[in-house]
Structure formats: C-alpha cells, structure tokens
C-alpha cells in the first residue's frame, strides 16, 4: 500500500459531515479526524490525521504543505473540531467572592465566564501565554498577553 504523503492525498467531505481521504487515487480512508499535536504551545504546527480507530495515518508539519483545495477542506473540518476560543480583548474582569468574573471578546464573539480557584484554572504556558478554564472546562486562550490592548493587559495584571 502506498504511504500517504502531503502530496498524494486528496481530502474531501463525503457525505458532507464526514472527512475522507484518498491516497494516490488508490485507496481511501473513510473517516479522518485532524488533531493538532500541540494546539496551545505550537499552534499551526504538526497536524495529525487520525483514522476512526484513533491511529495516525499521516503527520503534517503544517497545513501549508497541502494543496490549496485540501487546505480549505481541512480548515473547514478543523473549525468544526476545535471549538476553543481565543481572547482578543478583555472587556471586564473582577474578583468577587473568591471567584473571578470575566467578559471577553473572542473570535466567536463576546462571552462571560467565571473562573473559580484561579491558581488551578488560569494556566500559564510559558511567559506570555495564558489559558483560562471555566467551570465547565471551556477554554479561553490568550496566545500572547503582550499583544493585547493596554486596557485588557491591565485587567490581567491586576488579577494575575
């Protein structure tokens, strides 16, 4: 069997919600699930394509190594499988009664959330990157606090 590479595979949705892959037009893998290796620390790098048994079929260094059509298809699938949120701006943050209340603007829109026991649920990844986990395990990522506007940074500084 021919090993899949970023050049010989073709990705498509068939039916519309199932991602398939054919390898060099020879055989096809019926259900593919893309998984980032390290979505937080190395976003955009190392994308694994897993089959329905949870085994990796192919590890892509980046999405860019794929053809434009494949890229578009995989991006659509990724959008559906990664419902995490990236914080663009912090509208308000306050500590009250031992919990911290946040209102943030993410790429998905505005959302409020509460974080309890901040030392467990505000995780630093490296110096500048921060992830908040709310009580339901929803995650709100701040990729680089230095890139936030001063007002948002002040909110973080005043609490963390």
């Amino acid at each position: 069997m021919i090993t899949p590479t970023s050049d010989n595979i073709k990705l498509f949705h068939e039916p519309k919600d199932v991602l398939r892959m054919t390898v060099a037009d020879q055989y096809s893998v019926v259900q593919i699930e893309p998984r980032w290796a390290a979505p937080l620390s190395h976003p955009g790098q190392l994308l694994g394509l897993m089959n329905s048994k949870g085994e990796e079929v192919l590890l892509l260094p980046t999405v860019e190594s794929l053809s434009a059509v494949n890229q578009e298809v995989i991006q659509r699938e990724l959008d559906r499988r990664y419902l995490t949120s990236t914080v663009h701006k912090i509208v308000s943050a306050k500590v009250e009664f031992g919990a911290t209340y946040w209102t943030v603007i993410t790429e998905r829109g505005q959302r409020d959330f509460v974080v309890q026991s901040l030392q467990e649920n505000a995780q630093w990844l490296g110096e500048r990157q921060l992830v908040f986990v709310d009580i339901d395990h929803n995650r709100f990522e701040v990729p680089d606090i230095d890139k936030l506007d001063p007002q948002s940074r002040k909110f973080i500084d005043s609490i963390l």
Partner: protein
Amino acid sequence: MKSKSINPSETEPSSTGALIRLVADLLESGDYGQRVLEVDAESVRVLEMNGALSATIPIADIHNARNEPVVGGGRLEVTTKKGEKLALISYTHTIAARFSEAARGIEQLAKGEELLINLKPQRTHCEKCKRLLPEVDGICPACVDRGKTLLRIARFMLPYKYWAITLATLAFLTTVLNLVPPILQGRLIDEVLQRHTNYPLLYQLIGVWVGIALTSSLINITRDRIVAKLAGSIAADLRATVYRAIEFLQLTYFDKKQVGAISSRVTTDTDRVWGFLVEGVPYFLLNGLMLVGVSAFLFWTNWFLALCILAPIPVIITIAVRFWKPMTQMFYKVGQKWARFYIHLNESLNGIRVVKAFAKEDSEFHKFTKRNVELQEAGVKADSRWFTIFGAMLFFSSLGTIICWLVGGAMVVRKELTLGEFYRIHAYLALIYGPIQWFAAVNNWFSRAMAGADRIFEIIDMEKEAYRLDDGVRHDIKGEVHFEDVRFGYDKSNPVLKDINFVAKPGEMIGLVGKSGAGKSTTINLIARFYEPDSGSIKIDGLDYREIELQHLRRQIGIVLQEPFLFNGTVAENIAYGKADATMEEIVEAARAANAHNFIMMKPDGYDQMVGERGAKLSGGERQRVSIARAILHDPRILILDEATSSVDVETEKQIQEAIGRLVAGRTTFAIAHRLSTLRNADRLIVLDRGKIVEVGTHEELMEKKGVFSKLVETQSEIQEIIGFDLGQAEAAK
C-alpha cells in the same frame, strides 16, 4: 452600543409538541449565538432563532445519535439507516452533557422505545442578581445570605456559649475601665498639679489608678486565656466537621479538584473562620462599645471641641472605602503568587529524584527564582500601596490630634476649658482613632472569613455518597453481579462504558481484558460503587446495589487497586487496615497467601517495618503484595484485582496466582491483567474495547473464535518472543 455576551440560554422557551427542546450556544459559523434543537415523535429539527429551519431528519430514518466530543465542546451526530453520518448542531462544554442526554433520547425514539431521559432545566445565572453562576446549578457567591452564613458560623460557638458570654462581658468591662484613667489624669492636672498642693488627693488618685491598672490587666489576661481556649476548641471542631464532610464526598469531586485545594479547606479556610469568630467578634464588640462610649463622653465634656476633633473621621472612612477594593485585589494577587510558588516548590521536592536524574537542578532553580521574584514583586507592590494608604490614614488621624491642640489649646487659653479637661479629651482621642482604624480593616477581614465560610459550607452541603440511606438494606452477599445496560462516563457527555451487560455467577472468576483505556478499571470502579452508572443498573444477587447500605456493601468487597496505596505505618497495620482486630496469626496467613511473608520476614523489623509515606520504602512489587494481603484479610465476598501482579516477576506471580486460586474459591472475583497468561485460571473472560463488550467466553473459546482476544494474545506472545530473542542474542554475544 453595548454589545451583549452570548451565553448559554437561561431559559428554554417551551414549545408545544416538542418532546425535547434545547438551545445550543454556537451558530453554524462557529460564532457564539443561539440555535434550537427540537425533537418530536416525527423528526429532529434544527431551528435558527429567527425561526428558519436549518435541518430536519425524520426519526424513522435515524439509526443512532450521539454526542461527538470535540475540543472545547461537542456536536450532535446522527447516523441514518443508510449509514450516512450527519453533524446537526455544535455547542460548548457548558451544555454538552445535556445534548448527550438528548442524543440518547433521539435514539430511544428511533428505536420506538419510551423516552426516558433526564433533561431538567439548568440554571446558569443567579435568579436574584442575574450574575453568571460559577457552577451550573450552583450557588451565587454574591447572593448567599451573609446573615445566614454568619448565623451558621455562630452555631459553632454554641457549645461554648458561656465562655462567649463571659468574653463579651469582659470586653465590656475593659471598655469601661479604659475610660477611667483619663478622668483621673484630668483631675490630677486640675486639682493637684495646677494648684501645686494637695498631696492626699495625689496619693488617693494614684491608688485608684494602680487598682484599675491591676484590674484591667487581670481582665485582659483572663480574656486572652478564654480567647485561646475558644480558638483552640472552635478551630478543632471546624476542622473535624469539614474533614468528616470531605470523607463522605463522592469520588467525582476528587477527580475535579487537586488534593492541595481540598486540604486547604481543612486548614486555611477553617483558620479564617475561627480567627474571625474568636478574635474578630469580641473586638468588634469591644471597639464598637469603645467608639460609642468614648464619643458620648467627648460630647458630654465639650460638644464643640468633640465635633472639631472628630472632623477627619469621615475622610478616613472615605479612604478606607475607596481603596478597599483595589487593595483586596492586590492581596488576592499576592495570594495567587504564593499558590504558584507553593505548587512549584511542592512539585520539585516531590520529584526531586527525577530532577536529580536529569540533572535539572539549574533549570528548576531558574523556575523557582522566577516565581520567587514574581512573588516578591507582587508583595512589594501590594505592601507599598498598603503602607501608602495606611500612612494617609495615619496622617488624618494625627490631624485629629493637631485640631485638638489648636482648638482645645485656644479654649484653654480663653479659660473655656480647664487643662485637665483638655488632657482628658486628648487622651480619649487615641481611644477613638484606634477602633476607627480597626473598623477600616475589618471589612476586608470579614469578607475573607465569609468567603472561607462559604467554601466550608459548600463542602458540608454538597451531596454525599449515599452512605446511610435510611432504607438501605443490609444484605449478605452471595456473589452474583449483574450489569444491566450500564452506561457511564466520568464526564457525562462522553460515556466511557456503553451497553455493558453481563452476569457473573457467585464464585466465578471473571477476567477483564482489553487495551489500555478500554474501561476495565472503570468497570470495577462501578462495582465498588465509587461511581454509579449514569443509566442502567448493577444488581448484586438480584438486588439493585443502590439499595444496599453502602458501607455494608463495601465491607464485603475487597480491592487491590491498580496503583496500590499504603498508609504511613507498619506493614502489619497496613495489612490489617480492613480488619482492625485481626490477630498476628491472621495477618501472617494473609501475607503468606499473597506471597509477601518471606520478604516481610527479611526486613529488619519484620511486620513492624515502617513502609514510609505512600509505602515509598517498599518496592513496587512489595507494595502490591502487601495490598493483596490487605484485600485477602478483609475476607471479601467479591474480590477485585486490578493489575494486582503487574509489578512482580513471573515466578512470584505464579505463586501469588496459586495462592489466589485457593483463595478465590467461593468468591466472585474480577481480575484485570495485561499479562494475559495471568488470567488463565479465569472461568470466563470479558473483552472490552472502547467501552463496549466485544467478546465473552473462556480462554479456549475466545482463542478459537480468532477475534479481538486472540489477536491480543498473538501480539503479546510475539512481543515476548522478540524479548526472548533479544535476550538470547545478548547471551550469545557474551
């Protein structure tokens, strides 16, 4: 325009005819927004908020439905009878569990079964203040009734009420006595010093003063001794109450929290509460009385002067109120930094072997320094700020004194006030500004104590394991274990076990096999009722095991956990953990059966050998054997062995096997082992794969079937061959 955050819906508009109606919090585009899933007897529909229909599938076409967990949430997937898979609607974690329930409902409808799901409405916002709740269906920290909490804490004082009353009385006496010396001093000045005569009055007044000083010292000493007694007793009571509550919490709670966070509720939070109760409440009384008493006295002496010198007080109160919030925030931040510091310190000390093994002392020190500096900076910032504010407050307090001299001095010059009266007022000033500063700080203290109390009561009020169900029956187990359509997930939206059905007959030995993560340990966790099935039931001797009194049930189950845990104590104590009155002979017998006797005898102290924290002074295999002995001595009706012999060599394992073989006679046994040869004594094997039973049968039957099990066996013997081959080569190379 103020934009509104899109959050999970607070209410679900009811609709006629729909059996299930759920509002999701993500649009098709992935943006936050609301869409509705509607299910009735005919079809499953997805509607936009404007009423537009986005998707519809007839129930008759549906084969199955499930919540597909994705990163950050989930999506509802439906497979049609044609085998087509459709993703209907996406949502965040907040409501994933509800959609998982809905998926089950859709399946039930598709199969023509009765709709049996639990979709009670969720509260995400507080009804009173509309604030977002930290936990779905949880309490709103802003709206918990402070008065009620206070009363509940006060109840801990109840057993010591006479002491508390004495304390309050003494506080009152102290206040009164504090008022006396300035009066004496005033009279001394007016009637002795200024007149340059009257020795008898001098001695008389001094005599009274000495008496008062002595009395108030005695009162203070008594008061502090009572405080110490109350503090010790109430602290101990609080800790005991919280610990007792934690002991009976469900394991799901322990899965979610770090052990450090739980133990801090027993230590830090209880400290805050008793600290406030014992030291705060009496001073509250004392300072309150002092404030009222002294002000009254001042006004009585000279109302105009009193008004002047009290003028700065509103300013001080304003400062305290204005800076209180930012100040607490800063101290909160310092607390965060402390926590971060501690976590790293604990971790690197616990892992000191790994640190050394990888020669990572420098990089650990680097991390340490970073946290240390962060802590230092936050601390310095908060303290500097605090001292600045405090300094300002002090300045305004001293302004009171200056005003006293300015206005009072002028009055003395004009002979409107005697020097003695002036002196008395001056002395009372200090008695006023002290309590004022105390009150400025107490708000902070009070809030922290209340937060601590809330956290304590949260645990005390939390749903406990159904330990002492009133109508729980005591049932002497014969040993039949029956799983009926059991479904379970640690996270309710993502089942780890699905459709588990089997019957283990009394005395049967069942082997559970399957790949890592298949759900083997989870199955036995359910048997021990560490967790309960989300749906379906587990019956023991035909009786739903939830009806059996929990402690009674667990007393009849013996478990050797995958990660054996020993308590710091002797080997003998650990073996006898489940049977405190075991004789030494019984202990030795159990140890022998577990093939632990010989190694124990070779320890310098034999059965009295200390095993260290978590049993760290024993080897992995030794720990396992001690915990097997512990389970054996427990003499259970149902024996559970989760990888009980994974850390011992093959020879030892064989001996333990034989011992267990003798022991399991007449007991229902569940054994898990990766080394499949371990399970050759099993009457039947249950093969799990991704949470489902895929094969059941004896070793031979399964081998003949050439299914999942035989494949597992094959790969394992292949691996063994490879290892054997390598060894052979290594030997040959010598």
